[in-house]
């Protein structure tokens, strides 16, 4: 059992473990809505937009998570202005702004000397390097995001499923869209320490996409996404510890492996599962849902078709 217990005697590892579990849980729930709404690219754009905040915090020797938080909140406010008149899904200008933000981070970095390992931590994550303040902030922000999602779940469901009906009932659909993106921004902020700025989108959408393959009900999907994220994160952390690989990268690869396993073998929609279930000899065992009866009118009583 020393494979399990050895790392657990390392306080850095334990902090990282608590951090990734909290992040994976929140990312699974928020990611469920991101995947169902088909706005994954916005999550990615948000991740890019926090990069300059992280870079500035790094160069100023500040806490990276706080830098990301400030950048994330500025971005959310900017988004509110940009999307004042239309649903965010349609807003290409957001993509323009967010990549510009990432470019800003790159330009700020350009003339500074920065250790290769430190840059790697910003881009690809460093969960075991999470300090106590990081973990506390992650848990506090994560609880806030989860509580908001749970309290407002009916509004998010209604405005995602039937936005016209929701607005006719008086729901502020645009405000809910912006709120969902702000919650996504907060999730990206707390997740970047675990898997890094580049990979953060994987923690949001991969477990949720896997869960979507496994269930077609909303609450099980959110729970499953959180669970799959936790499994991948904990496993990735242990593998990273023992093999001395990047924990962030390993977490994302394990998560991707789970996705492909579901894609192939999901009980109802897996490629292999369906191929087996759809063999002609298997199909012929099933009771058909409909049958056909052909009735032909005799030609002599068929009236010529009037124009």
């Amino acid at each position: 059992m020393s494979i399990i217990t050895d790392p657990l005697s390392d306080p850095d590892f334990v902090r990282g473990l608590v951090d990734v579990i909290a992040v994976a849980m929140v990312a699974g729930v928020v990611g469920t809505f991101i995947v169902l709404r088909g706005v994954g690219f916005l999550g990615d754009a948000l991740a890019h937009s926090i990069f300059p905040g992280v870079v500035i915090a790094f160069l100023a020797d500040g806490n990276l998570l706080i830098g990301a938080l400030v950048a994330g909140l500025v971005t959310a406010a900017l988004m509110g202005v940009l999307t004042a008149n239309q649903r965010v899904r349609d807003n290409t200008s957001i993509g323009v702004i967010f990549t510009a933000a990432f470019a800003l981070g790159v330009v700020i970095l350009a003339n500074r000397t920065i250790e290769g390992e430190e840059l790697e931590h910003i881009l690809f994550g460093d969960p075991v390097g999470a300090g106590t303040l990081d973990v506390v902030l992650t848990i506090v922000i994560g609880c806030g995001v989860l509580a908001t999602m749970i309290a407002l779940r009916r509004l998010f469901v209604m405005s995602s499923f039937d936005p016209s009906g929701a607005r006719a009932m008086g729901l502020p659909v645009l405000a809910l869209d912006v709120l969902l993106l702000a919650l996504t921004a907060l999730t990206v902020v707390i997740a970047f320490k675990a898997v890094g700025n580049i990979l953060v989108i994987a923690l949001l959408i991969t477990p949720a996409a896997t869960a979507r393959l496994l269930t077609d009900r909303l609450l099980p999907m959110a729970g499953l996404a959180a669970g799959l994220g936790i499994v991948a994160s904990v496993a990735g952390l242990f593998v990273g510890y023992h093999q001395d690989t990047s924990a962030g990268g390993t977490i994302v690869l394990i998560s991707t492996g789970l996705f492909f396993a579901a894609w192939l073998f999901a009980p109802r929609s897996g490629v292999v599962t369906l191929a087996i279930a759809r063999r002609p000899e298997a199909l012929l065992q099933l009771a058909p849902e409909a049958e056909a009866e052909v009735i032909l009118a005799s030609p002599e009583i068929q009236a010529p078709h009037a124009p």
Partner: protein
Amino acid sequence: MASRTPTQARAANGATHESCLVLRDVTVAYGRRVVLAHVSADIPRSQVVSIVGPNGSGKSTLLKAIAGLVPLADGEITLFGHPLSRSRRRVAYVPQREDVDWAFPVSVHDVVMMGRYPARGWLRSSTREDEGIVQDAMAHLNITDLARRQISELSGGQQRRAFIARALAQEPDVILLDEPMTGIDAATHDRILELFEEWQSHEKVVLQATHTHIHGGSMIVLRRRAEPIAAEDFEHHAAEAGEHHEHHH
């Protein structure tokens, strides 16, 4: 019939003329395109009003304006003398097919229960009373056996039934339906016609944007080029509109 004064729609069954839903000079613009201009109508209770007209004449836009989905450039809409924006709960809206994300994972029961949230409060759990209303609404549309099914698994007619059950569960005074007869089976078509009669006898106001108006029923006829329009009954427009919008069965 170009008129800027509200016209009293003639009640098809001779019910009271007490004003319920009043449209006054309703004007809607998308950007700089005026797509509806000066639509006025004074609709009493117990009416089923068909909004008819060619594609692009603004049928759907008028319905959306009443539902509060598009802002009015001019004019006002009142329900029982109060601005409609203050009584959204009393208006049920059944959107066009294209406006709904049918792949979203919700069950038929979930959809019908959505009709209860405006009255119950969005943050509260449903009560036993809500559950009873939802069950009644589903039974009324003959979809009780589909309650646990995902909305994505249903046929077009069954999906329409679920949405109409949601409208019923809302217990509204005004029911707005955007193309309710499009893409459905004959049984659902007939059931919706029966419901129209039932709603009429329950003193509701029903407006449907449609290509298949109800023979002899009230209509709002829209034409292109943003002419002023008023609610009229069937006879005035039978000659010009009737042949294009004959009730298909």
